[in-house]
């Protein structure tokens, strides 16, 4: 199945019943499949006039109880940033798929890159946390979409899935698990009594979410708000609200962060990689193994929240860390901030991957 | 046919509309009589029909002295007072000599943008006191 289609199927398996989108290469196949498949699940597909509207629509749909998703690429994500902040502030679950392509600006619509990884966490204004999955093969395109929906619902937050063009337009084998085995989550709804309900109760880490039409007469706003949802612009209210929202992530890092560790226990040199680039790294590790070198890989399945603890631990075990990316060095800055050992960046301007041979060449260079 | 032409004046009790009707033969005479009774002037019995009276209420701290109520009261019953609410605005009052003029028409209740001023029928007040 096509990677993009795997994302669409993953969304449907997770219970997605609302898709609002705008055509953009290389994410159009997701919209195309959704426009056809939404009818089967009694959901709604709407094609809006731009990505800004798409993002606003999925937040609105989620407020009414739908599991909502949109799919776009770099230029579209740039447009969606303001409303991603709105979803974060209003604490509304939704999933945004970004099939990354060559940037900046119009860039290379039909070629890959990993140039938006920083934008997912730091693009919108203000301080906010983000959860981002980064699949590295078509099976993960499906699985991580399901996980994105689950985490979005569990933590009442927008989740950005960072795929890239290579995976989006790659056709590969896919196993779709039986419904029963899929654990789909839904946000917590408030109890029956209306009188004492506070939409943003600071006493609960993840307050139950009242949907439109349930009779709770909620007020939700993007302004800093108090526990009743009303605008309240004071430093004290802001501090309480922002700490609670941040704590949803910070206190649950163990549940959110997902990593793959290869050979990390007995190597001197380790890679930190993500997405399709990590497949090249795995290839390079195999080449190195044949030559008798043991090289490790810490693959980031979730890029955000950044796995600070694991990176610190890794940096205390190995001598050097290499970070190959299909961008001019984005995650490497985070790695450098926390690592105690030397960190070497392996940037790529975008358009293709590093080949395993190129990565192996880098290993040799680093060792000598 | 001139000799059968009759013109009748009608006066509706409160509307003062006049209608001229021409009829041409006696078959319609009964219908005319019925219509005459319907349109006949009936004096109002003041025991049955009372002119409504209203009393004025205000949620005083909401008033912002916008002037809509005293401008648009159809009987000019209201004017600005020299009393201030806690926000520093002058709220309305009923003019001297106009105490009995409020008829609870509802205009001030509707036009107040602040959900401050309203009237209630005065009968309610009398029952309460």
């Amino acid at each position, binding site marked *: 199945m096509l990677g993009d289609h795997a994302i669409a199927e993953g969304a449907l398996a997770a219970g997605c019943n609302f898709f609002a989108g705008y055509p953009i290469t290389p994410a159009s196949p997701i919209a195309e499949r959704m426009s056809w498949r939404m009818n089967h699940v009694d959901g709604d597909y709407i094609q809006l006039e731009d990505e800004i509207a798409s993002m606003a629509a999925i937040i609105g749909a989620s407020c009414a109880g739908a599991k909502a998703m949109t799919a776009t690429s770099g230029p579209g994500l740039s447009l969606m940033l303001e409303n991603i902040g*709105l979803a974060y502030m209003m604490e509304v679950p939704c999933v945004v798929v970004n099939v990354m392509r060559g940037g900046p600006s119009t860039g290379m619509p039909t070629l890959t890159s990993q140039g938006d990884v920083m934008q997912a966490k730091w693009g919108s204004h203000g301080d906010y946390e983000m959860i981002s999955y980064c699949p590295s093969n078509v099976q993960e395109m499906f699985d991580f979409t399901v996980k994105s929906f689950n985490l979005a619902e569990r933590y009442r937050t927008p989740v950005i899935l960072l795929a890239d063009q290579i995976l989006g337009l790659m056709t590969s084998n896919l196993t779709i698990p039986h419904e029963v085995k899929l654990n789909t989550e839904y946000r917590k709804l408030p109890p029956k009594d209306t009188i004492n309900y506070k939409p943003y109760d600071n006493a609960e880490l993840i307050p139950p979410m009242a949907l439109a039409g349930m009779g709770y007469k909620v007020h939700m706003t993007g302004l800093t708000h108090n526990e009743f949802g009303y*605008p309240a612009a004071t430093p004290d209210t802001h501090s309480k609200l922002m700490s609670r929202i941040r704590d949803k992530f910070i206190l649950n890092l163990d549940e959110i962060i997902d990593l793959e560790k290869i050979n990390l226990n007995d190597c001197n040199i380790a890679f930190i990689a993500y997405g399709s680039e990590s497949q090249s790294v795995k290839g390079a590790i195999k080449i190195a193994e044949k030559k008798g070198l043991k090289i490790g890989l810490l693959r980031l399945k979730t890029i955000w929240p950044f796995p600070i603890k694991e990176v610190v631990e890794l940096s205390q075990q190995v001598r050097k860390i290499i970070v190959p990316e299909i961008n001019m060095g984005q995650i490497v800055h985070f790695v450098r901030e926390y690592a105690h050992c030397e960190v070497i960046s392996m940037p790529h301007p975008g358009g293709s991957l590093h080949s395993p041979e190129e990565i192996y060449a880098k290993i040799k260079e680093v060792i000598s | 046919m001139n000799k059968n032409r009759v013109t009748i004046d009608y006066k509706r009790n409160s509307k003062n509309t006049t209608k001229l009707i021409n009829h041409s033969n006696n078959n319609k005479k009964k219908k005319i009589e019925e219509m005459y009774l319907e349109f006949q002037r009936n004096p109002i019995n003041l025991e049955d029909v009372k002119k409504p009276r209203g009393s004025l209420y205000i949620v005083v701290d909401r008033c*912002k002295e*916008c002037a809509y109520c005293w401008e648009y009261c159809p009987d000019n019953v209201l004017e600005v007072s020299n009393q201030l609410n806690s*926000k520093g605005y002058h709220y309305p009052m*009923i003019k001297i000599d106009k105490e009995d003029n409020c008829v609870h028409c509802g205009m001030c209740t509707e036009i107040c*943008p602040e*959900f401050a001023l309203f009237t209630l029928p005065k009968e309610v007040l009398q029952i309460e006191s």
Partner: protein
Amino acid sequence: MTLPMFVETHPRDELVRTERLPHIWCPGCGLGNILSGFTQAIINSKGTIPIDNQVVVSGIGCSGRFAGYVKVDSYHTTHGRAIPFATGLKLANKKLNVSVISGDGDLMTIGGNHLIHAARRNINLNVIFVNNFNYGMTGGQFGATTPHGAITTTSAKGNYEHPFSMPYLMASAGASYVARWTTLHLKQLEKSIENAFHHDGFSFIEVISPCPKGFGRKNNFKTGLDQMRYFESASLKSDNINLKEATASMKLLDNLPVGEFIIDNKPSYLKVKEATILNNGGRT
């Protein structure tokens, strides 16, 4: 003199978040009247549309604060994006009666694209377009509906640009219910809002509102009352007017056409969607 009797509640308080009154709008602002009329329209329609199904979405600005005062499910969203947000809400729960209430800068200047597309789609929304001819909340800058030549904080010598004529624009975009009233037309506005609730399709009601501090005082209307007096003298019910001439110029010698200009019963987005799917093989 007889002072009014002091009480704690007002008969129209039922659907107002009274803990947040007095509201932030200036003395003389028409938004209070619109709030009053809108909440009454909800109450009058509760036989056919349960109050729990009423939802209000607004954007940013003085008119955008509307959502914070209506006691129904209400959402205060980003600048200009209230309409797509409302589209998402309506599609996800088709029982909801979604109203978008926002200002001219929010809905037409920054959000104009979304407004005309929503009209084109004939999506089932009720848009109450509060036109006070400027960006009030930020101090009175000009926008897409500011009359030509008007003085605002960013057009001190007079506005070089010409405004949209909203009823004309909406009609040509395909809206199926287009009306304009002023905040002085209290009863007509209330009835019009009820008609919009029951209208199946995209309803657009432009409400001309005084803005004494933003627009009014620089443009020959010292108080909100002066603008209301202008509405009284200049407005003319003209349901069948040629919409090309239906501009609101706010100039003392011009007329202000009001009324229900377009009532079209063409099928709404949802109806057409269902019919199309049904006619082409159903949901398979």
